[in-house]
């Protein structure tokens, strides 16, 4: 809960080293510091156990604003530094927070900002679609870019090498063997044992941040709903929350409850898909068939009640696009009773299955320390003892009206990630029932008010993968100036490189599925 106020103590502690200017004009708490103190701040923040949550930049006239979002005990602070675009550099925070590593590399590629002392400043998001000295998110970079012919493959990315008797390399992807998203994995192995894994993502970079510029709120909500298709509700909600914060629009209570129902339905659908897929990756097809069946039934109810199987575009700026009738409410409740009964039978059968136990327990181990260091989120973090959940720690409507029980496991293996998902399904079923019971009559959408030029908002919600942070700044005339969505995958992907170590190569698919990062949400 955000009752304990660490910010005051921390500010007084900082005042010995760093001058912090508090900007209270925006609805977001912004602490502005001098750029040279960027790293020093991170060091002090680390000592006080602040969590690094997100980082991004934006261009304003001839300056760059660099942002880092920190969290402690449910309270978020946005740290900001302004640097001259003639010499865009500042000390890196990734030296202190490994979680900031790829984010800073993304900013380096997109804005041409140098993070001094960064432990790994290879390019990340950039492959060969634009040249080394051009930066897509600068204002003078045209949306269309200057593509010349076919984009070359990224042949010369300097992967980490290893040498030695019996060590060999396995390159995998970007086109994988299954129906999944593209990305490249480079393994070094001895026999079957994985010595090292390096991820190379960025293949599905679609320039979302750039094409968001100049959009209307509604159009941005549509785009946000496609940051990662499986998290369409989560991202759309975060973006709308940020826009509503910027414009001062308060959504009606009924709309908040319906958003809650949508988000929990999305969580359940994805967790069911994942549990089935994890079992399938260890060749336990019974579970896959049962869970894909239950998921299909669940999606059909989505289509019947909300008009879309994956719930795309149901959340709009100011509220929701679809209402819930009495009949729909009772259909949803009836479904939940059914699902509980089915899950009880299927889960018991899985729990008592020794071959499944043999494959999932101890495999893909992620220690609590590593999980904390990388700031891992959602079920990945919670399976390794990271007791974080935005719905409980920073409750936003409608979660402020109910008690959110956070599923937690401490073993850190694939089985833990499996069980956290199961517990979250059970908790989410309860929440949907609570929201339906509390459903008040009234509007489902507030009238939109045009925000003042330059106003900003920070939307933070608990998507099914974990905390989503979304930043929005408006230009004049209701147009978007900056959109940055931070999918939980961005922080979870690096954990995969760690949790596969000392597992065998054939167990990589199940390790990967247990984490199930979004490629699209990461690459933007």
């Amino acid at each position, binding site marked *: 809960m955000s009752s304990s106020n660490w910010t005051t103590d921390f500010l007084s502690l900082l005042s010995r080293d760093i001058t912090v200017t508090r900007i209270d004009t925006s609805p977001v708490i912004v602490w502005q510091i001098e750029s040279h103190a960027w790293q020093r701040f991170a060091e002090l923040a680390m000592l006080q156990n602040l969590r690094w949550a997100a980082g991004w930049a934006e261009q304003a006239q001839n300056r760059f604003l660099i942002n880092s979002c920190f969290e402690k005990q449910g309270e978020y602070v946005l740290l900001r530094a302004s640097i001259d675009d003639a010499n865009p550099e500042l000390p890196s925070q990734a030296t202190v927070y490994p979680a900031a590593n790829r984010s800073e590399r993304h900013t380096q590629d997109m804005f041409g900002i140098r993070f001094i002392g960064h432990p790994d400043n290879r390019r990340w998001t950039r492959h060969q679609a634009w040249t080394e000295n051009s930066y897509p998110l600068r204002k003078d970079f045209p949306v269309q870019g*200057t593509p010349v012919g076919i984009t070359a493959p990224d042949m010369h990315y300097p992967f980490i090498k290893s040498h030695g008797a019996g060590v060999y390399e396995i390159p995998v992807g970007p086109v994988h063997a299954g129906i999944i998203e593209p990305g490249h994995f480079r393994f070094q192995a001895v026999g079957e044992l994985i010595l090292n894994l390096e991820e190379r993502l960025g293949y599905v970079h679609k320039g979302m941040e750039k094409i968001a510029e100049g959009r209307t709120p509604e159009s941005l909500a549509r785009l946000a709903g496609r940051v990662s298709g499986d998290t369409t509700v989560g991202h759309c909600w975060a973006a709308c929350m940020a826009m509503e914060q910027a414009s001062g629009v308060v959504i009606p209570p009924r709309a908040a409850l319906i958003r809650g129902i949508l988000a929990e339905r999305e969580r359940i659908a994805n967790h069911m898909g994942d549990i089935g897929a994890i079992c399938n990756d260890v060749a336990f097809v019974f579970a896959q068939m049962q869970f894909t069946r239950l998921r299909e039934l669940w999606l059909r109810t989505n289509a019947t009640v909300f008009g879309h199987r994956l719930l795309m575009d149901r959340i709009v700026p100011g509220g929701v696009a679809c209402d819930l009738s009495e009949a729909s409410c009772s259909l949803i409740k009836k479904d939940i009773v059914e699902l509980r009964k089915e899950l009880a039978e299927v889960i018991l059968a899985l729990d008592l299955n020794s071959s499944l136990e043999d494959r999932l327990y101890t495999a893909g181990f992620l220690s609590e320390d590593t999980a904390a260091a990388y700031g891992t989120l959602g079920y990945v973090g919670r399976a390794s003892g990271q007791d974080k959940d935005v719905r409980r720690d920073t409750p936003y409507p409608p979660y402020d009206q109910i008690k959110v029980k956070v599923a937690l496991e401490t073993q850190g293996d694939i089985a833990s990630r499996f069980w956290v998902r199961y517990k979250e399904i059970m908790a989410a079923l309860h929440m949907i029932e609570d929201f339906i019971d509390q459903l008040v009559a009234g509007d489902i959408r507030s009238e939109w008010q045009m925000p003042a030029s330059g106003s900003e908002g920070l939307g933070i919600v608990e998507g099914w993968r974990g905390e989503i942070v979304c930043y929005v700044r408006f230009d004049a005339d209701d147009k978007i100036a900056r959109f940055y969505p931070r999918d939980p995958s961005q922080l979870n992907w690096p954990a995969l490189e760690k949790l596969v170590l000392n597992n065998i190569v054939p167990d990589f698919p199940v390790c990967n599925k247990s984490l199930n990062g979004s490629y699209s949400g990461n690459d933007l």
Partner: protein
Amino acid sequence: MLRILKKILTTGVVTERFSLRSHAAGHGNVDELEQLGIQVKRHIDKKFSGSIAIRQVDAGSCNGCELEIHALNNPFYDIERFGVHFVASPRHADVLLVTGPVSRHMQTALLRTYEATPNPKWVVAAGDCAACGGEFGVSYASCGAVSNVIPVDAVIPGCPPTPLALMKGLLELMSAKK
């Protein structure tokens, strides 16, 4: 083990079969699914000696289309019973099922996958992004529609297309092609 067997038996076969009763819920219609399936099968039998191999390629999608393509293999649709298989390599494929706007970073990979697919081959662009660029369009990072990169034989619109729409799209492809 007994629990597993019991659950399998009590669940029964949920695969939507050929029957005259219509389905109450507002999703696909059972008759339609089965009719479609049978037509698909007929075409596959005639043109591909009984089975068709699909290699799915995500060329930049948001992963929404992948979720629905996955659903084709769930027990309700069970598309394999009509002779439609998803394969792991383009070398084994008759059809490339491509989703997403083609991101520029995937352009070469898609071209190489296309080249690796033996002739005769068909390309199906699935989803609005693959059909016309969708929400992402053409930009410094995206080539837009799949047809901007490789020749496309059929298009299945939808954001994302439902499993039923995907089945229909495949059927249309097979009826159109000689």
